[in-house]
């Protein structure tokens, strides 16, 4: 599936020029369709960005731009716990990612390279755990965390997120290790390296991009998780962003100003990194999930 990450026009099918003639009407139709789709895709995000720059009194008007101000942002940063939530999210998602990748790396390699009894069962388990609905585990984990005194603690949330991250990371890394030629392992063995040595000295450095993608994926998964975060974390100073944002918009009313400003601060860095990394992400999806 190497073709997935090559969207450049250069990869267009060789036959295109021959049948590439399109009537101007057809071309216009295609462009209109794409434009309409792009507007629908971008508009909600853009609208939130614009609203965040408007004074609160205009927040719900349809005016595109009137009196641009950063007051929503300064208020958000000064008067709310936004930075605390941001820190909590960063801590929880970061720890989840590091632990998830660390625990799963050797398994991805073993599953990619060795035949061993239990492998099939393990692969099945990794696959099935990915379709676990949050509802199956949330109550028992909640009760266990409650007994251990880990509710409302970042550590509790990290442990919980590992239930999502570990199977996912192992599965995805297997996909990346599969793309590294086996001859490299063989050359390592010829040079007298143990399987661990081969893994550590040869394969791991080669798999670095794949590991980065896996890490990024588990980071954004934990960053955007809502169900566990809403159930396990209460009290203003313990919330993660997913819970914090809910504070601004609840059944009693909506503070669109801080809500939109917070959305922008959460989304823009994520979107930039995502768009930079997306070619690799797509390969990752194909290697890890789509192609299994």
């Amino acid at each position, binding site marked *: *599936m190497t*073709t997935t990450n090559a*969207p450049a026009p250069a990869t*267009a*099918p*060789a*036959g*295109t020029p021959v*049948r*590439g003639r399109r009537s101007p009407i057809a071309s216009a139709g*295609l*462009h209109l369709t*794409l*434009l309409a*789709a792009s507007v629908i*895709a971008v508009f*909600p*995000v853009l*609208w*939130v960005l614009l609203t965040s720059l408007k004074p609160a009194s205009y927040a*719900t008007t*349809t005016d595109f731009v009137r009196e641009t101000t950063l007051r929503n942002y300064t208020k958000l940063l000064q008067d709310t716990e936004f930075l605390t939530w941001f820190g909590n999210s960063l801590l929880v998602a970061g720890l989840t990612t590091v632990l998830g990748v660390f*625990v799963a790396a*050797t398994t991805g390699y073993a599953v990619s390279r*060795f*035949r*061993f009894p239990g492998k*099939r069962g393990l692969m099945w388990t990794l*696959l099935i*755990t*990915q*379709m676990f*609905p*949050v*509802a199956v*585990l*949330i*109550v028992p984990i909640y*009760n*266990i965390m409650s007994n251990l005194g880990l509710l409302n603690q970042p550590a509790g949330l990290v*442990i919980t997120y590992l239930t999502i991250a570990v199977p996912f990371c192992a599965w995805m890394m297997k996909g990346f290790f599969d793309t590294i030629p*086996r001859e490299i392992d063989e050359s390592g063995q010829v040079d007298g390296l143990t399987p661990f040595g081969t893994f550590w000295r040869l394969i791991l450095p080669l798999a670095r991009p794949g590991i980065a993608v896996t890490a990024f994926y588990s980071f954004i998964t934990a960053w955007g998780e*809502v*169900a566990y975060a*809403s159930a396990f974390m209460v009290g203003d100073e313990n919330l993660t962003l*997913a819970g914090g*944002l809910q504070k601004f*918009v609840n059944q009693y009313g*909506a503070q669109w100003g801080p*809500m939109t400003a917070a959305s922008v601060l959460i989304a823009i860095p*994520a*979107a930039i990194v*995502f*768009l930079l990394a*997306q070619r690799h992400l*797509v390969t990752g*999806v194909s290697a890890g*999930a789509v*192609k*299994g």
Partner: protein
Amino acid sequence: MAVHTSGQSVAEAAEPGRARGRRRDSAGAPGTFRRGLSTHWYAWTMVAPVVIVIGVIIGYPLVRGVYLSLTDANERNVERSIGVNHLPATYEFVGLDNYADALTGNQFLGTLGWTLVWTVSCVTVTFGLGLALANILNRRIAGRSFYRMMLILPWAVPGFVSVFAWRFLYNEDNGLLNKLLAGGGIDAVPWLNDPTWAKFSVIAVNVWLGVPFMMVALLGGLQSIPGELYEAAEMDGANAWQRFRNITMPGLRSVSTTVVLLSTIWTFNMFPVIFLLTRGGPGEATQILVTQAYKFSFEISPRDFAQSSTWGVLILVLLMVFAAVYQRVLRKQGETW
């Protein structure tokens, strides 16, 4: 077989017949085990961390969850600490009563019905739109990278942020959508407050969220179809529809079966969209199984842990049955997956 070509790995892993055969071999006498240990200890050591983690933080809670679904556990009778006092659990084993209640009552079946409607419509529309856009983007067209970037954007924004953005647009009194309608002289639409509109609205948001992934995956599939096939078909006089039908669709088969399966499972379990957009309301109109199970244990009082676990187990069983049937049907049609 140790080296999988990336396309085959699921196929092989997912074949239960062989799995059974393998297990029978290895579950023999202790001698076999010892021999296995000396040959395979590298592999077993390497998978040990994941096996331990899965066993401890997934396996154990799962077993607890299944057990809870066979009891009458709720907030008032589970083991808990109030201040320094530690109260032991007093809930009792009730057998399959919870399952009987769920399967004979209206609530589960009603919610299941809407969950199926929700899943099927979301997946169908998302797949249709994704396929159409992927096909357009696969042509030579000016500004292709630009369009592609724009169309991927919803995928780049964290899901819960997008959902709040949509809540902002959907707001009945001063949301943008209703303002635009008012500009056209149309009455405000109760996007999230009327059961039918709310169903429509949640589906729209989920489709909006899901199209980028679908499009990108299918675009990848399209780009892996050799151009010569199209050339040859054109020589033979096949028209555009025939080429689509006989080259594109079969060429996309393995990608589309996988993304449809994934997308079905994801949509079935799509917690954040429903939870953040409508909380299952108005009434229970948009409640899907997952959000309802969550509601049992975290939003009602006393929290009904047993019922919630029961629904959770039923959801898992439904999904596993679905995945197994799906895979069997594909295999019957000659797909190697």
